């Protein structure tokens, strides 16, 4: 019966830009992102029946994309037989530099790609894709408290990285409101 597949197909196509943006942030590579999105779409079609109507489709897809990516990292590590630090992409420290060179990125995007994997992921889910803390926690399979502590660290780090480039994210409100002290 084609009900879920009939529904799933148009949604997948409509969400391609969003899925690819998330995959780009995870993989830091256009080619890897495209592969990942394609594999995620295949998995979504096979598992169409497990999507519960009423829940956010993008969050469901992010979870699929994320789990596939983690599987791939794990396999790559096993193949390489080289211990890789938790939270570090297989592409290594060069990954961000490579991505910056290949993609035409804004300063902020470039800075986001320099964040550690776990911080980059949560910042992308909440600040770029607009998920709530609870939704991000579900995608990542972590408690909300972990989402919050990682996200706060990610934003402090992002602000520092941008500061290095002479960008002050606090600009609109950078001067303290002295007169409010009475």
């Amino acid at each position: 019966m084609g009900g879920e597949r009939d529904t799933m197909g148009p949604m997948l196509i409509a969400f391609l830009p969003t899925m690819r943006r998330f995959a780009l942030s995870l993989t830091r590579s256009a080619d890897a992102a495209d592969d990942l999105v394609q594999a995620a779409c295949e998995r979504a079609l096979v598992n169409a029946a497990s999507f519960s109507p009423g829940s956010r489709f993008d969050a469901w897809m992010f979870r699929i994309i994320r789990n596939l990516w983690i599987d791939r990292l794990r396999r790559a590590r096993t193949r390489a037989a080289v211990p890789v630090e938790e939270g570090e992409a297989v592409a290594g420290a060069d990954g961000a530099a490579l991505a910056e060179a290949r993609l035409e990125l804004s300063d902020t995007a470039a800075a986001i790609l320099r964040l550690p994997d776990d911080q980059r992921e949560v910042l992308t889910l909440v600040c770029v894709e607009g998920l709530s803390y609870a939704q991000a926690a579900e995608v990542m399979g972590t408690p909300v408290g972990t989402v919050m502590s990682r996200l706060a660290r990610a934003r402090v780090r992002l602000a520092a990285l941008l500061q290095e480039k002479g960008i002050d994210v606090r600009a609109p409100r950078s001067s303290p409101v002295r007169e409010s002290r009475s």
Partner: protein
Amino acid sequence: MTDKSAMPTDELLMAYADGEASPAEAAAVEAALRAEPAVAERLALFEGTRLAARGAFGAPPVPDALREAVEAMVGRAPARTPPQVADANVVAFRARPRGTAVWRRPAAAALAASVAAVAIGFGAFVAGSRMTPGERAGAGVAQLAHVPLENALAQPSGTAEEVGGRGRVRALSAFRNGAGELCREFEAEREGRLLGVACRREGVWSVDFALVDAPRAEGYVPAGGAEALDSYLESIDAGPPLDPAEEARAIAAAR
């Protein structure tokens, strides 16, 4: 806040900036903002990073190769198991019951959009004649409207009722939808099987949803029908099945 040096935690300031703070937490942050200027600066960091990140990637164009690959995948998905193609058709005749403002569930809305486009097998099911898919799509709705359901749907759940020479209809359950209408889930059998939902309005049973299995030529039993029905039931805010006594009272009251 009496202690002017008190700085809320980064998590709390961030939750405030993101609109995720509880009213009590928000009040605490606002008190701290009034008491200590440095709080505003720290808060600005969280507001600023969110703002900067939101537009950081824009919407990079999807490469044609990826789009084409996914379109091909979607297009061939139902064809992977050829017997499925014409085996089951879903028909929502009425998008929503009166009194329900919108289809709140995006997937259900997408389901409605997709079912409108499928060929309907029930025309052939009812008439027992061969029609082209196009004819069936039109005739299915019209003929289903003339299935004599009146008696069958007045029966207690589980009772099968012969409907003329047109097969049997069995009421499966009774429930109320979000609009408070009495609805029945029913099954009709002839060459194939039809699973439907009819709701009582203006003194008649109106069939709002039907899912048709074609004759089981190859012994194939569609697996996804239950989910399509579930999506539909959820979209109309279907309540739990009535117990036999409630059901009998509701049916008697509806006649």
